[in-house]
């Protein structure tokens, strides 16, 4: 047995994820009201089973390197949730697609592949073996359901996050907020709007990054070289 087997290896919440039917209000709440920066986003074409729709997966920094994340599915009707108890997206009908049910989960963070595989080993030896191990865009995750039926993820970064991913996430979210002013918005509309924002802002961003790199620390704060 390896020396890892007795150690506590997770380091907090990587992300807690939820579906949203109102990304505009979600952005207003987390970014504009609370001031949580948008730090990551995925614009993905739907594929695979379940007629998976195109979707945007976007992340807000909640401090401590942790994130709260949302899934917005283009064209998916919001469920009827005006009756019953529990928060609004907890009452899943029997015809709810599996991808939607799974979009609500907590993911804990580990610092290395070795640590991820150690948890895989522990789970696989238990009553709750790993159901999936997936390399996403920039993270690798294992998944299972806990004894309560809650979907549970442990994840590691495949590489460090690059600064341009923050820019890209912000352009995605601004484009999404813009296109949702019109009904029937699609991934196509998002990508067209995003191209316009890239043309408006990407060069400037690059110049600012380069200017920042030339700053050197001084007792009064950073100064230009």
């Amino acid at each position, binding site marked *: 047995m390896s020396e890892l087997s007795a150690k506590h290896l997770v380091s907090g919440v990587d992300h807690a994820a939820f579906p949203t039917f109102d990304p505009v209000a979600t952005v207003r709440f987390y970014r504009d009201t609370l001031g949580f920066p948008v730090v990551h986003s995925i614009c993905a074409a739907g*594929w695979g089973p379940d007629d998976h729709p195109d979707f945007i997966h976007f992340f807000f920094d909640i401090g401590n390197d942790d994130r709260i994340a949302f899934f917005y599915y283009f064209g998916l009707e919001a469920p009827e949730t005006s009756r019953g108890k529990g928060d609004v997206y907890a009452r899943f009908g029997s015809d709810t697609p599996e991808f939607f049910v799974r979009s609500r989960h907590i993911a804990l963070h580990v610092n290395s592949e070795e640590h991820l595989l150690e948890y895989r080993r522990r789970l696989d030896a238990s009553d709750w073996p790993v159901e999936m191990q997936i390399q*996403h*865009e*920039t993270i690798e995750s294992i998944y299972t359901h806990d004894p309560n039926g809650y979907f549970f993820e442990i994840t590691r970064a495949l*590489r460090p996050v690059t600064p341009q991913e923050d820019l*890209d996430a912000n352009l995605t979210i601004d484009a999404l907020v813009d296109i949702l002013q019109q009904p029937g918005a699609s991934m*196509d509309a998002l990508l067209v709007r*995003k*191209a316009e924002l*890239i043309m408006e802002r990407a060069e400037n961003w690059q110049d600012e990054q380069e200017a920042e790199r030339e700053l050197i620390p001084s007792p009064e704060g950073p100064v230009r070289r």
Partner: protein
Amino acid sequence: MTARLFVLDVPENVPIVEIARGYPGVSLEKVGPYFVLAAESNVTVDRRSTGVRHAVWYSWVGGLEGWQIEQWDRDAFRLVPR
């Protein structure tokens, strides 16, 4: 008219950009941290030739100008003029 496709410059996307820039009539530029693939006509990227994993294949596109996506599946990504 020249149509353009924007792709964020991150390591995962580079193999796809490398394949696409090699197609006849496709040019490659940079706008800030985005690659810009430009062409006058249809472009089809063969998924298998890129070697990227599924999650990357279905999320590499950053923006569209003058093109629309006609096909985006396990076989290919195809752009046609808008």
